[in-house]
């Protein structure tokens, strides 16, 4: 994903938030509700883009990460780059959980509300993700 893609997703997210705000029942926190919209928008966007390019979501993400160093809006060092690469190799759900927990530091309870998954399952997902990432970092 590059900045333009992220910009598109963010704009779509906020337009949807405004459109559906009247339907927001307050059953969850506003943050969780918005985050869920953003997550769905992002996943839909990636899948649609992969479909347009006649490829899979995984293959496309791997290609994107290889081009990451050329991205103007990515100024990460070698270890940051390597972590991004490791993440793209994870299954979709583990990617999501890992990014939310490690980068965003969202609490499991909030994450459970956003993703509609139990806290136990989320912890397991994160644990698996960390193991795979650490293995990748050791061998590469």
């Amino acid at each position, binding site marked *: 994903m590059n900045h333009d893609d992220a910009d598109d997703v*963010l704009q779509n997210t906020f337009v949807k938030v405004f459109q559906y705000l009247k339907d927001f029942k307050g059953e969850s926190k506003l943050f969780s509700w918005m985050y869920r919209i953003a997550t769905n928008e992002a996943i839909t966007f990636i899948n649609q883009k992969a479909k347009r390019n006649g490829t899979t979501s995984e293959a496309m993400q791997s290609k994107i990460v290889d081009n990451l160093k050329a991205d103007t809006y990515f100024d990460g060092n070698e270890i940051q780059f390597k972590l991004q690469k490791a993440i793209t190799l994870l299954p979709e759900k583990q990617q999501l959980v890992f990014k939310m927990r490690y980068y965003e530091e969202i609490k499991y309870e909030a994450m459970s509300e956003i993703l509609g998954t139990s806290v136990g399952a989320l912890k397991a997902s994160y644990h698996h993700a960390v193991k795979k990432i650490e293995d990748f970092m050791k061998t590469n």
Partner: protein
Amino acid sequence: MNDFKLDNEPKITSGFKAPEGYFDTFPDKILLQLPKQESKVISIFSSKRTWYLAAAAVMVLLLSVPLYNQYVLNQETVDATVLEDYLAYNTSVSEDEIVNLLNKEDLEKMKVDFNLQDKDIEEALESNANLEQYILD
């Protein structure tokens, strides 16, 4: 990197950054994409004309206060006794003329006003020094 443990490493951030000023212009971008609202609510205080009219109304009110006071002063009610005294001492209207001006109804009313009691008449007669003379006559 052989014993890489994510928790032992210093926090690795994502490495992405947003273009400068991106979030300053973001709300405007979103507002442009939102569907136009059906009816625009216009505040009554938004138009310049309303303010001019309000100012004019206040001026008119302020200017009319002294005029109103003057008007009220001129309308001062005349005290009934003062009026009566004036009529009694300062006019050349004779009693006959007044009687002519009174109609039957007025006279009826006056009769009620002068409804004298027998006692009053007696008192009046007693205090009259010429009473005996009258009786003798």
